[in-house]
């Protein structure tokens, strides 16, 4: 089946604006993750959903960041009052959850490159 998809591929916005980034996970995957990757760094965990609920949001940097997954499938990462430091690639991943090599593997989307001017 199709992999994880993310839209838009690129987003340019001005400082102070609001942005929404969308992630469509692999069909049937109950676990969904958001990561942020700055230039020259590895991805850093932001938030994890199991079904519709945010099971772990400890990686969100501050209250300007918020994510939802209302029907347990598509997720939206929302950033309010964007700052230049928010510029990064935002990656989404999904997994089927549970034990086992396949279940524990996270499958990543192509990412959204956010540039805040």
């Amino acid at each position, binding site marked *: 089946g199709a992999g*994880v998809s993310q839209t838009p591929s690129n987003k340019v916005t001005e400082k102070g604006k609001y942005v929404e980034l969308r992630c469509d996970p692999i069909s049937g995957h109950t676990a969904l993750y958001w990561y942020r*990757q700055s230039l020259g760094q*590895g991805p850093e965990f932001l938030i994890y959903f*199991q079904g519709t609920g945010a*099971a772990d949001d400890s990686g969100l940097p501050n209250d300007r960041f918020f994510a939802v997954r209302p029907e347990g499938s598509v997720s939206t990462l929302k950033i309010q009052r964007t700052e230049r430091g928010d510029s990064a690639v935002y990656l989404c991943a999904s*997994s089927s959850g549970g034990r086992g090599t396949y*279940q524990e593997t996270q499958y990543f989307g192509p990412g959204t490159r956010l540039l805040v001017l």
Partner: protein
Amino acid sequence: SQQGEEDPQALSIQEGENATMNCSYKTSINNLQWYRQNSGRGLVHLILIRSNEREKHSGRLRVTLDTSKKSSSLLITASRAADTASYFCATATYSGAGSYQLTFGKGTKLSVIP
């Protein structure tokens, strides 16, 4: 915060040579995964090794894990120009509700010269 530290940060080799990348980490893990990333976009999963495994193979990839030293290595044999990419190790710890949180290192940038 990033737990894994890859070594070297950059590696340049000739096509056909073997490439070895190392990863060290700090805390206990459930498994360790290696990913490849081209041009700073999506990550491609390469291989997963569990904490009770010592070595795993997949095609031209060989991964080792030494939990006593908290380190792992990724060996790519007979490298090809298409292997040029950044390689990341990610340690997985159980985060409850049936899922695992990944903590990535900064990556090794591999260049394979034709």
